[in-house]
């Protein structure tokens, strides 16, 4: 579980580790937390799996990964866990989620494939189709066209509120 200090720490560090000799100290200074406690808390959160990974978050497009497909399927509820787990084992699958079906969007399984070109991505998808027997389920392929905004998930501080209207 996250306590208030964990949240405060994550709110600061998620903007990025500064490029200086003692980055955890710099983060700690901003929230009055000793460097050793910053490191201890991050180590624990990582061990607990609340931090899935800590490190370099690359942008794929400048690196030549220009073909990004989101594939969605309508999978029977009884099969989704097994199929989702199976899909996520493939190295080229970069995300795999279940989301609710809506009337206007009757799909429940999502996976993302990042590749250098479309032909590669489609070949990888064909591989998934045959290995996981997905061909019979209704699906759609949505290649991304342009990126308007990319930023890692930034979680707001719990106390932050904004008014809209």
């Amino acid at each position: 579980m996250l306590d208030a200090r964990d949240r405060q720490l994550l709110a600061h560090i998620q903007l990025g580790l500064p490029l200086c000799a003692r980055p955890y100290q710099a983060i700690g200074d901003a929230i009055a937390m000793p460097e050793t406690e910053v490191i201890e808390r991050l180590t624990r959160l990582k061990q607990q799996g609340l931090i899935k990974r800590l490190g370099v978050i690359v942008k794929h497009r400048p690196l030549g990964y220009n073909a990004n497909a989101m594939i969605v399927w309508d999978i029977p509820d009884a099969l989704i866990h097994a199929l989702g787990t199976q899909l996520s084992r493939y190295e080229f699958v970069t995300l795999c989620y279940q989301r609710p079906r809506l009337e206007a969007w009757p799909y429940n399984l999502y996976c993302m494939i990042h590749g250098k070109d479309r032909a590669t991505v489609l070949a990888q998808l064909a591989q998934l189709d045959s290995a996981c027997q997905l061909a019979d389920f209704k699906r759609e392929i949505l290649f991304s066209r342009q990126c308007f905004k990319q930023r890692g998930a930034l979680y707001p501080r719990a106390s932050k509120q904004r008014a809209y209207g």
Partner: protein
Amino acid sequence: MLSPLQQRLLNDFQRDFPLSARPYQDIAEQLGVTEQAVLAAFAELNAQHYISRIGPVIRPNQIGASTLVAMAVPADELQAVADLVSAYPEVNHNYEREHHFNLWFVLIAADAAHLQAVLDDIEQHTGYVVLSLPLVQEFFIDLGFPLDLAHA
């Protein structure tokens, strides 16, 4: 062109960035270069937009509330609507995709009520319906992404 040092920094430190007092020094020792060289190479990767940041990937739904949003926007209004959406600090990963539902983005807010307020606000200001598709279950364990940098 990426230097060999930059390639190693991009590929080898996505998952287990050192949790030590001097992480860049530890990386430098592993790679046989100076701490200064590591800091300079990261600064260059930042400046050239190869990396979004060095930081944690937090398991979804641990802090605040989030959802994936889809909108169907006429092509000639897409840029304007996308700009309007991108301006919200709660929005990330705002993409055009090739589909009738052509605008896709992730919304993250402090809590469910705030998330709903932003969704309502976007509908009201754009005049288009939003489909909100919150996470039910995540199968993928994000361990970073192995890069084929040979032709980067």
